[in-house]
């Protein structure tokens, strides 16, 4: 407000000095905790030049890790998107006993350590269990193989989509769906033409978060994968192994690639937030 008197200030606003101090404090914390470590990762990766960095990425070990991580995300994220939509739909459009229990169950992966999740998968599907043994005999082991990694990633990232959707769907209510039904639309048509368009941005947002987490998951995957080099080692696992072997250029280069994938997700998310601020307002609960 340039035309307001210089001394006038909204009641909720702090004095300029306090404001500047607060902003400075936030900037210092951001710089120390977020920006500096990221710069360090890229600095370490490129310390011996671009060619060295790129050469480490071209090694079979790194290529296999990138391929595995992308494969796991490509399977886990779409499946979780479908399950998340189904769970959110079920919870918000129907009334039933035990709804609160189901909501808590959906949140469970958020509150349980990923390592515990990984152990659970091993204990349930390992070679010495009934299901696991059957699969091993059939030639498709679950644990220490791709299915186990996908399973563990799915459990850990399960809440993201449902958690994004539930507040949006609660806010929108059931009236539009009911209107579609009275107009003669089937349940599936109602979902496709009314529900889905109304939740599309929240869904995309949830999928992006789910993807970022699926690609970065370490704890659960470390337990179920068996860390077999070139076979079951995802990007985060490979980074740890390289780092422990003092191959710092290779470790930090792979870390930089993983960070870049994260930036891509964040960039997309921010872009969507700016373009669809209204639609997303209801889902901003983080």
């Amino acid at each position: 407000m340039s035309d307001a008197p210089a001394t006038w200030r909204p009641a909720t606003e702090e004095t300029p000095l306090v404001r500047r101090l607060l902003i400075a404090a936030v900037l210092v914390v951001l710089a120390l905790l977020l920006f500096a470590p990221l710069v360090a990762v890229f600095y370490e990766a490129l310390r011996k030049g671009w060619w060295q960095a790129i050469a480490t990425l071209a090694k079979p070990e790194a290529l296999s890790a990138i391929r595995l991580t992308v494969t796991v995300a490509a399977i886990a994220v779409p499946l979780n998107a479908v399950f998340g939509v189904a769970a959110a739909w079920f919870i918000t459009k129907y009334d039933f006993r035990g709804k609160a229990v189901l909501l808590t169950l959906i949140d469970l992966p958020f509150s349980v350590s990923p390592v515990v999740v990984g152990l659970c998968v091993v204990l349930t599907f390992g070679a010495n269990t009934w299901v696991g043994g059957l699969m091993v005999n059939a030639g498709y082991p679950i644990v220490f193989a791709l299915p186990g990694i996908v399973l563990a990633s799915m459990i850990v990232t399960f809440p993201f989509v449902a958690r994004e959707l539930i507040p949006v769907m609660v806010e929108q209510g059931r009236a539009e769906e009911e209107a579609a039904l009275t107009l003669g639309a089937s349940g599936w048509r109602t979902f496709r033409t009314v529900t889905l368009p109304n939740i599309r941005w929240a869904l995309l947002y949830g999928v992006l978060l789910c993807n970022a987490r699926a690609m970065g998951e370490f704890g659960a995957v470390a337990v179920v994968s068996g860390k077999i080099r070139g076979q079951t080692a995802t990007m985060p696992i490979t980074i740890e192994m390289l780092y422990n072997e003092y191959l710092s250029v290779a470790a930090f280069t792979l870390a930089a690639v993983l960070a870049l994938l994260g930036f891509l997700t964040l960039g997309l998310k921010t872009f969507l937030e700016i373009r669809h601020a209204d639609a997303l307002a209801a889902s901003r609960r983080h």
Partner: protein
Amino acid sequence: MHIEIDEISKSFGTTAALTPVSLAIPSGALVALLGPSGSGKTTLLRILGGLEYPTSGRVLFDGQDATGLTVQQRRAGFVFQSYALFRHMTVFDNIAYGLKARPRASRPPGAEIARRVTRLLDLIQLPDIGARYPSQLSGGQRQRVALARALAIEPRMLLLDEPFGALDAKVRKELRQGLRDIHDTTGLTTVFVTHDQDEAMELADLVVVMSGSTTGGKIEQIGKPQDIRARPATAFVREFLGA
């Protein structure tokens, strides 16, 4: 279409919403379900439209048992309290929705759908708003679009839940006449829910006064507006009209 409600009751879990109620609605009538909140009037309307199933009792359309018909099979034009227009579709697409949702065999061709939507927009006296989105409309316009959307499916009856509830007093008066005109033009059996006695008395041919209690909503009196005013059947009706 003649509607008969035969000993319908409804409870949600342990909460009773409707004690058994019976009501006959003659074909082509304009009926108001009038009562305070908690009297089960909206529940009764939703049971007619197939959005809720009754706990017991039957609904008959033209003498045929319709209790088990799905919401789609009922073909009831339903106008929701806050209109429930599809926010991501234009007014045109909102009105065309029911026609496009029909099975391929009975779906009119595109040009025919467009013609019908145009005719409905004329009927609600808003011929130029087809390209707009619901968020760009006033409350009164939204209500009329919701009405047109419900009429597009060539419904067997018209059911309206507090159709004037969200509007200011002046618009409310205009739209009352609008609903009356549409009812008279189409000849559809029409049931609307209201808690406003002036609205019920002024608009309806037949008023059903309902009351609520812990044992569920029930019907206190059924009659023509002037008869209910002249001879309230129960103490509740007298008190409700006096208030």
